[in-house]
């Protein structure tokens, strides 16, 4: 009997995988870039942002939640799929208040870096300009929900790593928002500590450690070094060091 190879084909490239790996995990481990936003290698997959959506044997699926299986033909970097990703990113920008020139996360922000990589020049849609909460009550951590993209990384980090469940999601649809688990609803009244994973996991500028602003100047930040498709910390380095 012939062994079935543990290989998926992504955009024509043969990508080996370990049984149990998702398509995204296999791709990143092989140095193949699939854009993603709510995925983080240290946390359980969430599958909410849909930026990683690929077409697997003709059907759409999130690469971060779909297990890799032999015989999968995956399309990811096609113009059509990239256009859909750009549209998703444009929706995320107009749903929040993303004023990058006034944001400490600029240059270190995954949402912004994905938009650069997708050559997003315009928000395209009308802005929601939502009225969201800013919570400065914690001595070491600022919460500015204007920039929250509801990836739930803070929820996962606080619950699964810190064992504290400081953050949760409440509401539905356009009313969906991150809430804080304290009697007052204020971050300062939780046991969140600056050392917690949840204080550092936010991919955008919604949860920011205080008093470290501009410790790395604009121009020398993570995604100033190159496009996220090349410098992503989640991407296995290829032999030439890229």
């Amino acid at each position, binding site marked *: 009997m012939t062994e079935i190879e543990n290989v998926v084909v992504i955009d024509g490239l043969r990508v080996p995988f370990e049984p149990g790996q998702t398509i995204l995990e296999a791709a990143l481990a092989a140095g193949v870039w699939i854009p993603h936003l709510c995925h983080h290698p240290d946390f359980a997959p969430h599958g909410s942002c849909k930026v990683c959506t690929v077409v697997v044997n003709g059907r759409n699926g999130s690469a971060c939640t779909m297990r890799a299986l032999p015989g999968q033909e995956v399309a990811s970097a096609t113009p059509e799929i990239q256009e859909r990703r750009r549209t998703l990113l444009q929706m995320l*920008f107009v749903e929040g*208040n*993303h*004023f*990058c*020139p*006034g*944001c400490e996360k*600029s*240059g270190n922000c995954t949402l*912004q870096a994905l*938009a*650069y*990589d997708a*050559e997003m*020049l*315009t*928000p*395209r849609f*009308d*802005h929601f*300009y*939502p*009225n*969201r909460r800013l919570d400065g009550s914690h001595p070491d951590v600022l919460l500015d929900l*204007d920039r929250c993209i509801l990836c739930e990384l803070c929820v996962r980090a606080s619950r699964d790593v810190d064992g504290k469940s400081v953050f949760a999601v409440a509401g539905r649809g356009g009313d969906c928002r991150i809430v804080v688990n304290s009697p007052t609803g204020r971050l300062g009244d939780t046991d969140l500590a600056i050392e917690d994973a949840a204080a550092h996991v936010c991919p955008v500028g919604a949860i920011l450690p205080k008093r470290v602003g501009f410790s790395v100047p*604009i121009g020398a930040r993570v995604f100033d070094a*190159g*496009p996220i498709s090349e410098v992503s910390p989640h991407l296995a380095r290829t032999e030439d060091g890229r």
Partner: protein
Amino acid sequence: MSAPAPLPAPAPRRRLRVATASLAGCFGCHMSFLDMDERLVGLIDLIVLDRSPLTDIKHPGPCDIALVEGGVCNAENVHVLRELRRAAKVVIALGACAVNGGLPAMRNHRGLEDILRKVYEERPDGGAGIPDDPELPLLTDKVHPLHEVVRVDYFLPGCPPSADAIHKFLTDLAEGRTPRLADALLHFD
């Protein structure tokens, strides 16, 4: 058989007529335009400036391109923007404020009245009161990016876009290419 006649030399390219305007912006994008420094000399072979704070012409004639900095925050901005849209074949939203409202749009999630009171009245010295001179243009309820008011053809983000980015965009257009900003020139901040 005689040799085919040589092709006629291409006609010299007509210089593009460019208007520029600053709406609810800080003039940083115009400063960045001037930051092209000596490259402006080369650019002048490709473009000619119409209405612009740089020429002090107040109303645009028929133009190829309108470069518009700043978002829309009052009735005068709406008027100027519509005039430019009528005059120009191509409107470019120049810079973060024109593209998404920018920092002026940070007032959008507070009420206009609340903002005016905070700025002009709720001050330790009591303030001088909210200005009500009839010459002042009426403020819009929200600050809007250009594309929420008129049709916009191209967007050039950045706060401000670098001189390199503006130069690349304009020369691409003047030489008949679709403008494209490679990764190093694409910035939202």
